[in-house]
């Protein structure tokens, strides 16, 4: 692919696939009016149709072919030749999944031939399935529209689909109306939008046919004596535009007329064939009026203008801007420091005072700019949730478990990079909930639970973090069984008593899998350890709460954005360190007497749980502080995913926003447990701790005996 098409193809193809996914989800939601279903089927058809056209132009034969098949299927559905039964929905959903793979493959030109062949074979299989499904259906034509009383000015401009909807409305026993309304060219889109909204509340909008504008009717009372004039078709007003909206509705003529408003004219186009009473239609004559001069003159249209006002930006461009922004924030802190020194020396009366004032303004604007940039990277979770819902429905079919998937908070916004990064972990958790969390249908019956298991996907903002929860109302985690497996795999000490939290932690250990037999669904070689690692990579936390017989909730806490983070500054010896605040669960004041040594490692008890400790001063071999050493110290409890660790530090210095910079390759690997460096306002560099790495190290150190 090259040229102007390729730049737009991938993002647009992705968008179309999202739309199709979302469309399928809403379609599957029960209890919808027939016109809503028709609307959605048509939207799905249009998406497949657009994708086919684009892929064909881009020379992507496979995708074009596949979307053609799906388009064909959607066409049968929207034209009523097939009904949207579950197996057909499954067929469409499989098709969309295949399309997605095709698009992903097209995005990576280096993909192997083996992948291509596999995809090709699956596509061929899929085509056969579609052909079998559609062979049963036959086309349905009805009498010509003219014989139904639809005037040619409308019938000729209808697409085959619109014609089908018109017939369908008559078949459903509805009346088909035409509402004619004329608007000024200045604001017709707004006016038409209002009218359309009112009419859609009363029935199905089948088509909107634009017509040459007619003069506005005189305001009431201004021309009372004017007799009815010649046919309105003669009067043309180039400053106006007319629309005929074709509506199918079961409502009475009066109701539709009320909805259309006083300035619109209503005509009955057709009544259902069975209808006995055919009242004459009321094509009210338009008020005659001479054509007016065009109110618009000398309008200029600038060339090559697009009428949309959004811009697509690649995420790395925003990354770059945000990095520059971060530098500015640091420089601002440096300037502040200098200004303060100047202030100390000269007092606030002179230049120093003005400098500080001006810096305040700069600071406010920088904050706004930073917020704006961070905001620009944010996307709502709704697209991701829709994708997950789709995947969940597919899974529920595969597993034969009825699932009632609910979601809330999908409007919560998160950094785009992060949304993509948590997609797989979330899917994994949902799979896990369906496969392991929910009981079998019999199991649920025995437990007196409704047949459909409930899985809830919930997102909510919490300070500068976002919490995403996946809960099920299943059997809960079988902790004794988890412990047994952990012992079998040599992860746990058979003679040791573990708290529930400690047992849950085993779930996140590499190689741990609770499924007695690897199932088709969860058994994809990825364990919860991968989920934990993915989340930890973004400074996120995973928490698990489970109640036997009631259900399990996995909560993921993620910082809203990645680039600028709030950190806790701590001192160990003479050195300062920054700990990402999203990793900090609590801070405690500790004494040497709290610390016990178990198997050579220092630990302390924290609410019945054994917390491994790490002394930062020793770990990083910090120089001793000049400050007097006391028996008191602080413990910063940090966590990543499900593990916790207490960092022993001498002092907590406060919180600050920092911009993490990567440290040079030379240092990487030499100092373990360092994520990068950050510059403080006073031009001091400090190290930012890599909490997941420190946790790994600590867990390797405290190996349970066995």
């Amino acid at each position, binding site marked *: 692919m090259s*040229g*102007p*098409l390729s*730049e*737009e*193809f991938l993002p*647009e*193809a992705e968008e179309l696939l999202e739309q199709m996914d979302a469309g399928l989800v809403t379609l599957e939601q029960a209890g919808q009016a027939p016109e809503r279903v028709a609307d959605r089927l048509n939207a799905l058809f*249009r998406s497949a*149709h*657009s994708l*086919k*056209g*684009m892929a*064909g*132009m*881009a*020379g992507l034969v496979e995708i*074009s072919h596949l979307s*053609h098949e799906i*388009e*064909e299927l959607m*066409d049968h559905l929207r034209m009523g030749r097939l009904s949207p039964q579950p197996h057909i929905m499954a067929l469409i959903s499989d098709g969309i999944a295949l399309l997605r793979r095709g698009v992903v493959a097209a995005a990576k030109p280096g993909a192997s031939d083996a992948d291509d062949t596999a995809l090709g074979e699956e596509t061929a299989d899929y085509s056969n399935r579609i052909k079998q499904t559609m062979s049963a259906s036959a086309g349905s034509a009805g009498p010509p529209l003219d014989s139904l009383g639809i005037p040619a000015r409308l019938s*000729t*401009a*209808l*697409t*085959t689909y*619109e014609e089908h909807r018109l017939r369908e409305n008559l078949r459903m026993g509805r009346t088909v109306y035409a509402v004619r309304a004329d608007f000024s*060219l200045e604001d*017709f*889109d707004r006016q*038409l939008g209002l009218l359309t909204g009112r009419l859609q509340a009363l029935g199905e909008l089948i*088509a*909107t*046919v*634009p*017509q*040459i504008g007619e003069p506005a009717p005189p305001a009431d009372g201004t021309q009372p004596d004017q007799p009815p004039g010649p046919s309105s078709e003669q009067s*043309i007003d*180039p*400053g106006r*535009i007319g629309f005929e909206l074709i509506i199918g509705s079961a409502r009475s003529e009066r109701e539709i007329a009320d909805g259309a408003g006083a300035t619109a004219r209503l005509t009955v186009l057709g009544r259902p064939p069975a209808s006995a009473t055919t009242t004459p239609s009321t094509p009210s004559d338009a008020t005659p009026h001479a054509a007016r001069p065009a109110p*618009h003159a000398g*309008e*200029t*249209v600038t*060339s*090559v*203008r*697009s*009428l*949309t006002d959004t811009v697509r930006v690649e995420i790395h461009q925003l990354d770059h801007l945000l990095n520059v922004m971060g530098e500015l924030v640091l420089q601002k802190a440096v300037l502040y420091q200098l200004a303060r020194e100047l202030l100390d020396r000269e007092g606030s009366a002179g230049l120093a005072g003005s400098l500080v004032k001006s810096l305040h303004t700069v600071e406010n604007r920088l904050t706004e700019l930073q917020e704006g940039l961070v905001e620009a990277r944010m996307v709502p979770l709704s697209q991701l949730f829709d994708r997950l819902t789709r995947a969940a429905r597919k899974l529920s079919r595969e597993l034969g478990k009825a699932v009632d998937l609910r979601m809330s908070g999908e409007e919560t916004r998160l950094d785009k990079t992060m949304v993509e990064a948590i997609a797989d972990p979330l899917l994994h958790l949902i799979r896990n909930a369906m496969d392991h969390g929910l009981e079998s249908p019999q199991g649920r019956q025995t437990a007196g639970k409704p047949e459909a298991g409930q899985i809830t996907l919930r997102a909510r903002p919490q300070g500068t973090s976002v919490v995403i929860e996946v809960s099920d109302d299943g059997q809960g985690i079988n902790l004794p069984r988890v412990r047994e497996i952990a012992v079998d795999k040599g992860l746990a000490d058979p003679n040791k008593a573990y708290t529930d939290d400690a047992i849950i932690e085993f779930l996140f250990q590499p190689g741990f899998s609770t499924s007695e037999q690897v199932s088709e669904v969860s058994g994809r070689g990825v364990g919860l350890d991968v989920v934990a690692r993915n989340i930890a990579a973004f400074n996120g936390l995973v928490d698990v709460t489970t109640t036997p017989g009631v259900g399990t909730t996995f909560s993921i806490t993620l910082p809203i954005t990645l680039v600028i983070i709030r950190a806790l500054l701590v001192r160990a010896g003479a050195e300062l360190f920054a700990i990402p605040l999203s990793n900090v669960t609590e801070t405690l004041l500790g004494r040497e007497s709290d610390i016990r040594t178990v198997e050579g490692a220092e630990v302390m008890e924290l609410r019945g749980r054994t917390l491994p400790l790490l002394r930062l001063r020793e770990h990083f071999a910090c120089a001793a502080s000049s400050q007097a050493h006391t028996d008191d110290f602080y413990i910063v409890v940090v966590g990543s995913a499900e593990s916790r660790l207490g960092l022993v530090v001498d002092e907590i210095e406060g919180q600050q926003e920092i911009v993490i910079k990567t440290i040079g390759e030379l240092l990487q690997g030499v100092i373990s447990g360092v994520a990068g460096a950050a510059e403080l306002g006073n031009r001091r560099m400090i190290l930012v701790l890599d909490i997941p790495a420190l946790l790994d190290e600590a867990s390797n150190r405290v190996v349970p005996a066995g």
Partner: protein
Amino acid sequence: MAVSVLVVEDSRAMRALVVSTLQSLGDLRIVEVDNGFHALKALPGSRFDLIITDINLPEITGLEIVRFVRQHPVHNRVPILIISTQRSEADVRRGMQLGASAYLGKPFEPEQLKTTVCQLLPSLSPASSPS
């Protein structure tokens, strides 16, 4: 006066391709819109030498645009080129009956589009294009 073309197409990718192909024909004034409403908005203020439209558009379809243009006192003689996929044969036939001047099926080669456009706009010639 520069030749001016109205392009009505809801797919950004398709629109980009059509516009860049047109641009290779010379210094054209191109107005691109992504749906029928915007096409109706763009029409009154200017004169067009060619309208290129897709059929499958949301709400106001390409057929409705063809019909509207053919009825329009100012624009009724403007050549209209329909671009659509083979799926919509019946709709294309209707479009031609309504008075569309030519039809180009997707997928097409940019060269085909150039040739068709030059047939509809004799003042342009592919030979004069830099391509």
